[in-house]
């Protein structure tokens, strides 16, 4: 009965030990990865130590008992414990090494992506500047809004010059019309003078006719006078003919003057309303263009600090990625400590009733140089980290 009770107690102890070891390994791994590698190792060591101490104390009497020794439970439990520790430590080390590789690849990809984003941002900023500032125009270094403003000013100036020219031209034409009108007004007087000449010619003709009649009446003595009278009549007729020709030409000139006045009136009479409409439309268009250009410039100006902030954040991200080294060293440190547990676990798995090899391995572990070294990475965050040189 006593033996049976002891066997049940031993089974319970083994379950408890297994649970303790599993908890030590799980907690130690998690502490090592997420909190601190040394903390993980210390945690595992402390729990394993406690477990071993409990094992030795509780089983001191049964170990010397032949019945229990013959049953073989303690040696089996220790062997299984060692195998489990060995397996878990190996798996933990493999996982950590895999994680180092994955982390390295991810950080490399992220660094390249951030670098590319920064280049694209610079390119985008340059394109926006090209849009807002007319950099292709080497003569002037102004913005598009300034160019548009200058263009609008030039257009107004051109329009004003056109209007001034039109007004001056119209004024000159009206003066011309007035002067031509003055000439036209002189025409009736000239015609009147010519009509007076016609009347004189007619009277002269009549007078010469009377002289010829009187000369004929005088007979031979009046023959010479008759010749003179005929010449006078001829001159009078020629004078009347010239007068008629001049009158005809003057009337033609008067007709030409009237045509000229009509032509001048057509040229001088320009509707100014359309100029007003054109001016208003041009002002509207140029105002819209200038307003748009200024708005674009304003938006670009507002974007500048955003882009700067974005670049700054990218730099921060890229800088943070540099701490991948610290993380890798951290995990390497943890792997090396786990490696040291392997001989202990191996000793446990073959220890059986002979604990001397295990005790030797524990002593070696406690005296190990590596154990004396502290973690080279002392930082707990990327903002204030530092790496100790070995």
């Amino acid at each position, binding site marked *: 009965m006593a033996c049976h009770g002891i066997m049940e107690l031993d089974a319970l102890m083994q379950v408890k030990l297994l649970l303790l070891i599993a908890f030590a390994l799980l907690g130690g791994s998690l502490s090592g990865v997420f909190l601190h590698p040394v903390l993980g190792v210390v945690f595992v060591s402390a729990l394993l130590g406690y477990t071993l101490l409990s094992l030795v104390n509780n089983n001191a009497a049964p170990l010397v008992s032949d019945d229990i020794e013959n049953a073989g439970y303690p040696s089996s439990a220790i062997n299984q414990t060692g195998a489990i520790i060995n397996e878990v430590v190996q798996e933990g080390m493999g996982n950590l090494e895999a994680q180092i590789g994955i982390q390295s690849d991810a950080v490399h990809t992220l660094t390249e992506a951030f670098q590319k984003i920064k280049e694209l941002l610079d390119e985008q900023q340059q394109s926006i500047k090209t849009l807002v500032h007319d950099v292709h125009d080497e003569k002037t270094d102004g913005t598009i809004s300034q160019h548009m403003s200058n263009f609008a000013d030039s257009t107004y100036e051109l329009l*004003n010059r056109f*209007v*001034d020219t*039109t*007004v*001056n*031209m*119209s*004024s*000159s*034409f*009206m*003066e011309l*019309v*007035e002067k031509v*009108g003055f000439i036209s007004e002189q025409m009736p007087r000239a015609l009147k003078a010519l009509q007076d000449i016609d009347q004189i010619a007619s009277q002269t003709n009549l007078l010469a006719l009377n002289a010829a009649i009187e000369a004929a009446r005088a007979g031979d003595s009046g023959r010479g006078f008759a010749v003179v009278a005929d010449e006078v009549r001829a001159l009078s007729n020629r004078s009347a003919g010239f007068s008629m020709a001049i009158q005809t030409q003057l009337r033609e000139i008067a007709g030409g003057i009237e045509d000229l006045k009509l032509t001048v*009136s057509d040229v*001088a*009479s*320009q*509707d*100014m*309303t359309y*100029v*007003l409409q054109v*001016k208003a439309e041009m002002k509207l268009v140029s105002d819209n263009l200038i307003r748009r250009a200024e708005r674009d410039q304003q938006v670009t100006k507002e974007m500048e600090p955003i882009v700067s902030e974005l670049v700054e954040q990218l730099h921060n991200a890229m800088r943070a990625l540099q701490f991948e080294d610290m993380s890798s060293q951290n995990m390497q440190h943890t792997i090396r400590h786990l490696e040291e547990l392997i001989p202990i676990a191996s000793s446990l798995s073959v220890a059986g009733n002979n604990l001397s090899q295990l005790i030797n391995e524990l002593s070696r572990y406690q005296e190990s140089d590596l154990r004396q070294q502290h973690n080279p990475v002392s930082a707990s965050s990327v903002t204030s980290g530092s790496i100790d040189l070995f």
Partner: protein
Amino acid sequence: MTSAVTIRMPKRFDYSSNTEFNAKITAALETPGAITLDCSELEYIDSAGIGLLVMSQKKAQAKHSKMIMINLKPAPREILQLANLQKIIDIK
């Protein structure tokens, strides 16, 4: 300078107004003092009308007189300002 003569401007002031307006201006320039153009009826003015005004102003200036335009409606006022006539004629 007091306003001596007032000329009422027609509804349309263009080339057709030439003879009548010139006659009125010539007559008005016989009287000393500024010539007032009452534009309360004026609705349309073209470049020939503006040319007539400029020519008349030159005549007035030659006789040390000047022209004043009053009661202008918005449309003809805008056209006169577009032609910068306010620089040579007093537009009220």
